C-alpha cells in the first residue's frame, strides 16, 4: 500500500467542482452532462483503486488525468455514434495545441468562480440556483441534495436537469466570463451563498440541528468569490457573518444532540481563531461605508462573539442594529422578533410583551414556533408563569423537530 498518507478533509467534494470547472473551460459547457458523468465516474474509479492501494502520490493529478481521459473517451464515443464530426477535431486540437490543459491553481480558481457565477444565473429560480451550485461546485449527488434541503428526490432530479439545460444554453463558453463579470455579479452570488449557509444553520427541519457540510461549502465558495471581488464590502461582510457563525457551532449543540441556548453556552468552546477571522473580514467591510444586511448581521454576531458572558452582552447596541436591519427589511417577522428579544434583554421583558402580542405570523418556515417560544420565554422572565406555560404548550405543538421539542420541555420543567 502506498504511504502517501491521508487525503485533505473534503478533498473529493472540493475537487469535484475543480474538475468540472477545468473540463468545462477546455471542452465547453455544452458537454456539461458528459463532464459531470466523467467526474462521478472518476470518483468511482478512485474508490475502486484507492481502497486497495491507498491514494496515489499526487491524488489531484491522478483525478484530473483520469477524469480527462474518461471525458475524451465519452466524447469520442458520442461522436462516433451521432456523427457529430468535429468533436474528433476538437479533441485533437485540445490535446496538441493546449500545452497545459490542467491549468495551475490560479486559473483553476478562476474556472470555479466562472462556474459559480454561471450557476447563480438570474434566469434560474432561487432554489434551483442553490441546488445546481451544490451539485456542480460541491459534488452533492441527488440523494444528498434531497436530504440536505428536505426535498423529494424526484423533485431534485427535475430541478437539476432543468438548470443544467439552461446552463448549457446560457453559458456556452466559460472563458468569455471574466473576473470583472464575476465581481459585478457578486451580489447575486452572495444571496445564494447566504441562503446555502442559512439552510445549513437553521434548525427548523433537521434532526441533526446544524448541517455543517452546507455551511462549510458556503464558506468555501464565499472565500472563492472573495478572490474575485476583494474590494466588495458585501462579500467581506458575508464572510465575517459566516465565520462568526461557524466559530460558535461547537457550543450550540450538546454532545447528545440537544440545542443549547445562547445564555447557557460554554463560551470557551467558541473557536477564537475563527472569530478572529470574522473580525478581520468585518474590519475590511467597515472601511467601505457599506451597511447592508450582511454587515448588520455580522455586527450583531460580533457583539455576541465579543461578550465574555451572556450578562455582559451589549444588548442596547444589538437592539439598535436590529432596528437598522428592520428598516432595511420591514416585512421580516424574524427580524422583528429578534429585535424584540434584544430589547427584552436591553430594557426588560415587560415593555416588549404588548408588541410581541401584536405580531402576526408570516410565511417564514418555523416562525410560528419561534414566536410562541419567544413569548413563553419572555412571560417566564417577567414572572407570568401561567401565560408562559400556555405559550410553551403552543410552541410544543408547533415544534417541527425533536431538538426544538426537547428544548421546550426542558424550559417547561424549569418553570
Amino acid at each position: 500500500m502506498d504511504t502517501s498518507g491521508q487525503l485533505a478533509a473534503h478533498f473529493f467534494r472540493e475537487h469535484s467542482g475543480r474538475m468540472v470547472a477545468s473540463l468545462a473551460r477546455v471542452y465547453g459547457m455544452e458537454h456539461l452532462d458528459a463532464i459531470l458523468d466523467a467526474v462521478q465516474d472518476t470518483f468511482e474509479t478512485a474508490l475502486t483503486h484507492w481502497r486497495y492501494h491507498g491514494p496515489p502520490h499526487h491524488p489531484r493529478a491522478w483525478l484530473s488525468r483520469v477524469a480527462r481521459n474518461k471525458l475524451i473517451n465519452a466524447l469520442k464515443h458520442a461522436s462516433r455514434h451521432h456523427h457529430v464530426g468535429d468533436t474528433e477535431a476538437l479533441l485533437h486540437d485540445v490535446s496538441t495545441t493546449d500545452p497545459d490543459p490542467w491549468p495551475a491553481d490560479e486559473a483553476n480558481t478562476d474556472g470555479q468562480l466562472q462556474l459559480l457565477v454561471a450557476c447563480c444565473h438570474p434566469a434560474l429560480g432561487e432554489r434551483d440556483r442553490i441546488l445546481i451550485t451544490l451539485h456542480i461546485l460541491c459534488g452533492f449527488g441527488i440523494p444528498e441534495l434531497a436530504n440536505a434541503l428536505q426535498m423529494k428526490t424526484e423533485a431534485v432530479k427535475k430541478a437539476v436537469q432543468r438548470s443544467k439545460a439552461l446552463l448549457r444554453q446560457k453559458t456556452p463558453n466559460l472563458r468569455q466570463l471574466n473576473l470583472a463579470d464575476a465581481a459585478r455579479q457578486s451580489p447575486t452570488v452572495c444571496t445564494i451563498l447566504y441562503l446555502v449557509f442559512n439552510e445549513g444553520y437553521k434548525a427548523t427541519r433537521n434532526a441533526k440541528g446544524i448541517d455543517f457540510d452546507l455551511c462549510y461549502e458556503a464558506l468555501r465558495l464565499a472565500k472563492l468569490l472573495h478572490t474575485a471581488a476583494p474590494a466588495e464590502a458585501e462579500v467581506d461582510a458575508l464572510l465575517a457573518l459566516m465565520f462568526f457563525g461557524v466559530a460558535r457551532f461547537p457550543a450550540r449543540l450538546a454532545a447528545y444532540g440537544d440545542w443549547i441556548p445562547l445564555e447557557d453556552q460554554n463560551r470557551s468552546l467558541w473557536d477564537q481563531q475563527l472569530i478572529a477571522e470574522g473580525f478581520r473580514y468585518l474590519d475590511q467591510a467597515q472601511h467601505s461605508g457599506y451597511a447592508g444586511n450582511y454587515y448588520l448581521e455580522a455586527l450583531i454576531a460580533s457583539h455576541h462573539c465579543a461578550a465574555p458572558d451572556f450578562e455582559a452582552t451589549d444588548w442596547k447596541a444589538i437592539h439598535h442594529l436590529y432596528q437598522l436591519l428592520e428598516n432595511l427589511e420591514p416585512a421580516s417577522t424574524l427580524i422583528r422578533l429578534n429585535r424584540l428579544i434584544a430589547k427584552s434583554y436591553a430594557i426588560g421583558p415587560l415593555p416588549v410583551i404588548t408588541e410581541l402580542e401584536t405580531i402576526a405570523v408570516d410565511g417564514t418556515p418555523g416562525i410560528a414556533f419561534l414566536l410562541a417560544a419567544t413569548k413563553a420565554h419572555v412571560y417566564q422572565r417577567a414572572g407570568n408563569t401561567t401565560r408562559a406555560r400556555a405559550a410553551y404548550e403552543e410552541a410544543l405543538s408547533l415544534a417541527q423537530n425533536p431538538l426544538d421539542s426537547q428544548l421546550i420541555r426542558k424550559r417547561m420543567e424549569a418553570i
Partner: protein
Amino acid sequence: MKEFLMLIREDANYGELSAEEMQACIEKHYRWVEELTEKGQFKEAQPLEAGGAHIRGKQRIVSDGPFLEGKECVSGYYILLAESLEEAIEIAKGNPDLDWDRAVEVREIMPMED
C-alpha cells in the same frame, strides 16, 4: 502462519454514494490496512475489473458472466495472514466494506503438503 483469501462481494453500483462517503470509504480502508500491516496480518490486496468472461464446460461456452450492474459479484481480494480460520474471521470482520453492507468471504489457501 497460514494464508487466507478474502473475497469482497458487492454490487458495483456506487451511484448512491456521495463524494464525502466515497472519501470516507477510502480512508477507512487505508487506516485498516495500515493497522493489519503493522500486525503482520496483511500480504496483498487487489481490486478486480468489473468486466470479465465466464467460460464453461467442454464446449468452452463463453458468456459475460455475472458481472452485470446491480448484481453482487467479486470486486477484489485480499491475502490475509493468520494462525487459524477463527483469527482470519476476526480480521475480516474489521473490513470497512462491511460498513457499506458489502459481503466478504474468507477461505484458507491450502498449501502443498511436503
